[in-house]
């Protein structure tokens, strides 16, 4: 039996191979575009979470300042002290801490720290307390607010 001519046998399946090659190329290109878009989406989601955490931390600091204004017995020593936490309805619970840096009879400089979801914000707050016996609200001055 005579074998078929070699040039005829070599062409078998060539269209399929070319098509598979084209599909592979297109798939790689599409995958790259999809990967790029997915990265963008992930970045946006992370950014949104970060913004929520920032807003919650800000709220935690404000809540902490309000606590210090309302209760002058808080944050009177240099050890870190936990203040009531702020239960943020949008983000998670915000842990608020304060630490006394320096104190004089009329004023205290404290550092407030608010932590939420691995994000921390700090504020340097000066509290001007009314003299003992005088029922007047504590005045606050915020010199630094860092996210």
């Amino acid at each position, binding site marked *: 039996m005579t074998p078929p001519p070699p040039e005829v046998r070599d062409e078998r399946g060539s269209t399929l191979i070319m098509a598979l090659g084209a599909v592979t190329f297109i798939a790689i290109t*599409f995958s790259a575009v999809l990967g790029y*878009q997915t990265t963008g*989406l992930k970045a*946006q989601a992370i950014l949104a979470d970060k913004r929520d955490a920032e*807003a919650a931390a800000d709220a935690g600091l404000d809540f902490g300042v309000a606590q210090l*204004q309302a209760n002058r017995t808080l944050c009177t020593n240099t050890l870190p002290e936990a203040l009531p936490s702020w239960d943020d309805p949008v983000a998670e619970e915000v842990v608020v801490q304060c630490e006394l840096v320096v104190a004089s009879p009329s004023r205290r400089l404290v550092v407030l720290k608010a932590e939420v979801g691995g994000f921390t914000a700090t504020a340097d707050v000066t509290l001007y307390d009314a003299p003992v016996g005088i029922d007047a609200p504590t005045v606050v001055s915020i010199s630094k607010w860092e996210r």
Partner: protein
Amino acid sequence: MPRVVRIRAGSATNGPGRGFRRRRLAGARTRAPEAGFSIVEICITVAIMGLAFTALLGSMATATSTSDLMARRAQADSYGRQLTELLRGGEVKLVQCDPDLTIAEAYESALASVDPLDRFTFKVVDARATSDVTETNLDDWDLDCWTTRPLLEWVQIEVTAAGTTPVSVKVAVLLRHGESA
């Protein structure tokens, strides 16, 4: 001078021309299974490419619409933050409560008057106030109307970005009032 190729005829036993015919027949037998092979190949190829393109275009369409959704969500979120900054900065504040409005309605009305972009629709969905700062549970913040400002207010705003699929984002802000130097 053109080259003349002499084709040798078959042997004397087979007679002239028989070898050529046999070769032709042999060739026809080997080529016969290839008849229609290309069309089968092309059909399979078209089917594979069709499936591949359908899947890829489908995922691209989904990714594009999701990307658009996320972009509008980010814009709405950014706009919401601007509104909360207006509240935090004191550019919009309620000096006294209007007895005919809830706090949320009063804030919505006040914010609408200074709407920085007017590109999105927004609604103050919740607003609460308290003069008791030790109260950490928002549900117990029930100050509806006040003569002096409350110490803490919590305002939640929902911003909606229009589109084929509207996107809504909620942002919230805690406002602290008190003596500041």
